[in-house]
């Protein structure tokens, strides 16, 4: 019987040579006359082990990694196809502590299946959520999602069910379901990993959302920086149409749902929901004034669901396993699981899906293994470029929307970027303002002008020019931006700036190192 070998085709694995490894394995097998089936999975999210090669031995998957093309001949010599010993040997992949201790719900299939194989998807519980949804009334689906406690995983943490209810209750001849896949926050890659590793779960989630609110058209707004996800989604959508899971008769229900991917064009602001809608309509991604909410008057002026990839991809398992099943995970008002992404200066970077309630310390040290450089972790930025910098003294804080907001931080999309003790936090604060200036849509003055002035003021502080006055001016500027901007870009840029100033003020009081 042919031995099955998995080599990921996730962009992150490819970026460190997975294709070369796959080619080399195929070549080596051929030259040795070995019958081998090469499958391409998504990533398990243990990115420091990529390329992670898995071999099916008996019914178990054994891992080797990180494998380079130069290791391949040695792996064959060590009889890795039968789980042979080798310095890169990791044992049973499911037993690797990083993975074994996770609670994979939304990411249950990611890295396990061949991403665009509908057969694989169906064998692993795929489309059972949709089947359940088809047996329910619209308001029952919405109620179930509300009861699950699911809150928007894009960053705003708004209860998903309540958003859906608004769309359901707003009568209109046309409604839309849109997926915000403009994952622009540094330190985040959960959306990408899911879209590449299990695209059908997103498609199924959107289909259920469409049934729930009576929408017939869906759009995935995907950032152009994700060409691999684009290909994966396109292939999966094509298969879903061919198999009757999309189109005019969804799974034989007589209900219609069409789905299309639309590409962004490199504007961070389009991750803001109203800006995304403008962009989907083919315009400049300028933020809209709310109200009206997109749920009432969204895409092309119609009631529209705007949900993040992870929110939508969590819906199938909620339908399949029930609201209580999902709600039983988590703490306080943060229910279910959340994919945390460990990035930056971290030894074991990757994705950790756990119930809410896990502490930063556990994530950074038990999972992350400390910094990549081996130096102490001085600060982490949680929640992307608009998230606060958190000092080591607050690493006991747990992942919970309310707990983070209690220390003046936010969870955002769940990215954690670690910095060691060589970081200059005044420089990071300056970068926050610089980034805001580059990415501002220009609609609100505090954001458009304030960000540029912010860079200048921080420079003056760093160079010791009227330092006290400029520190006061920076605080005033932050307040103006926070209170006077329509959306989170201008409104939240003060988070990294103020937190850097609060916890690392000394860095502002010495001249720039570079």
């Amino acid at each position, binding site marked *: 019987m042919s031995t099955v070998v998995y080599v990921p085709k996730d962009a992150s694995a490819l970026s460190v040579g997975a294709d070369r490894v796959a080619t080399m394995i195929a070549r080596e097998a051929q030259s040795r006359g070995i019958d081998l089936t090469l499958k391409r999975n998504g990533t398990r999210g243990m*990115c420091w082990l990529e390329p992670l090669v898995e071999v099916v031995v008996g019914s178990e998957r054994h891992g080797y990694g990180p494998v380079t093309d130069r290791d391949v001949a040695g792996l064959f010599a060590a009889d890795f196809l039968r789980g042979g010993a080798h310095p890169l040997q990791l044992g049973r992949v499911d037993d690797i502590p990083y993975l074994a201790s996770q609670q994979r719900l939304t990411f249950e299939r990611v890295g396990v299946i061949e991403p665009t194989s509908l057969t694989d998807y169906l064998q692993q519980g795929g489309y059972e959520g949709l089947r359940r949804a088809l047996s329910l009334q619209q308001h029952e689906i919405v109620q179930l999602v509300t009861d699950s406690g699911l809150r928007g995983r894009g960053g705003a943490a708004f209860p998903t069910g309540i958003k859906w209810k608004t769309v359901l209750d707003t009568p209109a001849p046309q409604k839309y379901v849109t997926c915000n896949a403009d994952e622009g926050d*540094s330190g985040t890659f959960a959306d990408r990993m899911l879209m590449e590793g299990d695209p059908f779960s997103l498609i199924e989630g959107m289909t259920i959302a469409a049934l729930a609110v009576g929408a017939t058209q869906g759009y995935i707004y995907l950032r152009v920086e994700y060409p691999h996800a684009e290909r994966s989604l396109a292939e999966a959508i094509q298969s879903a149409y061919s198999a009757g899971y999309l189109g005019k008769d969804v799974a034989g229900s007589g209900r219609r749902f069409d789905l299309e991917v639309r590409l962004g064009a490199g504007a961070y602001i389009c991750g803001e929901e109203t800006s995304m809608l403008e962009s989907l*309509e*083919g*315009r400049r991604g300028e933020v809209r004034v709310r109200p009206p909410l997109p749920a009432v008057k969204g895409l092309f002026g119609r009631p529209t669901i705007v949900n993040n990839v992870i929110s939508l991809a969590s819906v199938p398992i909620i339908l399949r396993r029930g609201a209580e099943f999902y709600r039983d995970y988590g703490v306080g008002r943060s229910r279910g699981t959340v994919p945390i992404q460990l990035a930056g200066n971290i030894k074991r970077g990757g994705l950790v899906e756990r119930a809410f309630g896990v502490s930063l310390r556990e994530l950074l040290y038990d999972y992350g293994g400390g910094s990549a450089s081996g130096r102490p972790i001085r600060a982490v930025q949680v929640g992307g470029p608009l998230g606060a910098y958190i000092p080591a003294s607050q690493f006991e804080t747990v992942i919970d929307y309310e707990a983070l907001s209690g220390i003046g931080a936010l969870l955002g999309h769940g990215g954690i970027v670690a910095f060691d003790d060589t970081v200059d936090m005044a420089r990071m604060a300056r970068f926050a303002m610089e980034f805001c200036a580059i990415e501002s849509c220009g609609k609100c003055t505090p954001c458009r002008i304030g960000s540029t002035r912010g860079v200048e003021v921080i420079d003056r502080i760093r160079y010791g020019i009227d330092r006290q006055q400029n520190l006061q001016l920076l605080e005033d500027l932050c307040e103006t931006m926070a209170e006077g901007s329509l959306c989170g870009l201008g409104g939240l840029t003060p988070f990294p700036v103020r937190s850097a100033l609060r916890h690392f003020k000394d860095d502002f009081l010495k001249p720039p190192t570079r």
Partner: protein
Amino acid sequence: MVGIHQECYAQTMSAVELNDILDEYANVPGPLLLVLHAVQRRLGFIPQDAVPYIAERLNLSRAEVHGVLSFYHHFRRAAPGRHVIQICRAESCQAMGSDQLAHHARQRLGIEFHETTPDGACSLEPVYCLGNCACSPAVMIDDELFGRVSPEQLDALIAACDDDL
């Protein structure tokens, strides 16, 4: 009807091709970004003289088309080099030395960000997150993503761009 200046397209895109693109998206809601993406995929940029024609066909003003074109970082209004090197400058990559990597790239290529080497081989562009943050620092060359990029590896990648004429 705005006329297309056929000669301006001689080296880029024929009027027929542009028409084909516009025909394809004529009945799609909110088509402008789709059209611009299609033109850029074909040419690597969006020529200035295509703007009035696109505006006319989509029933938009030139200002609207120009506004969209200039809003999005991805759209180019001039031809890039044969290869586009994007270096991530966002926080995660900064934490792993992307500033030094960017400095190295500028020196190696002898150009600044948003510039193209005189031989037309490489354009250097900043990018803010490629979603490869667990393998920082990240670089994208054309459509190919690279992670954990060292200055030496970047040299090798740039050399491959130089060779690939």
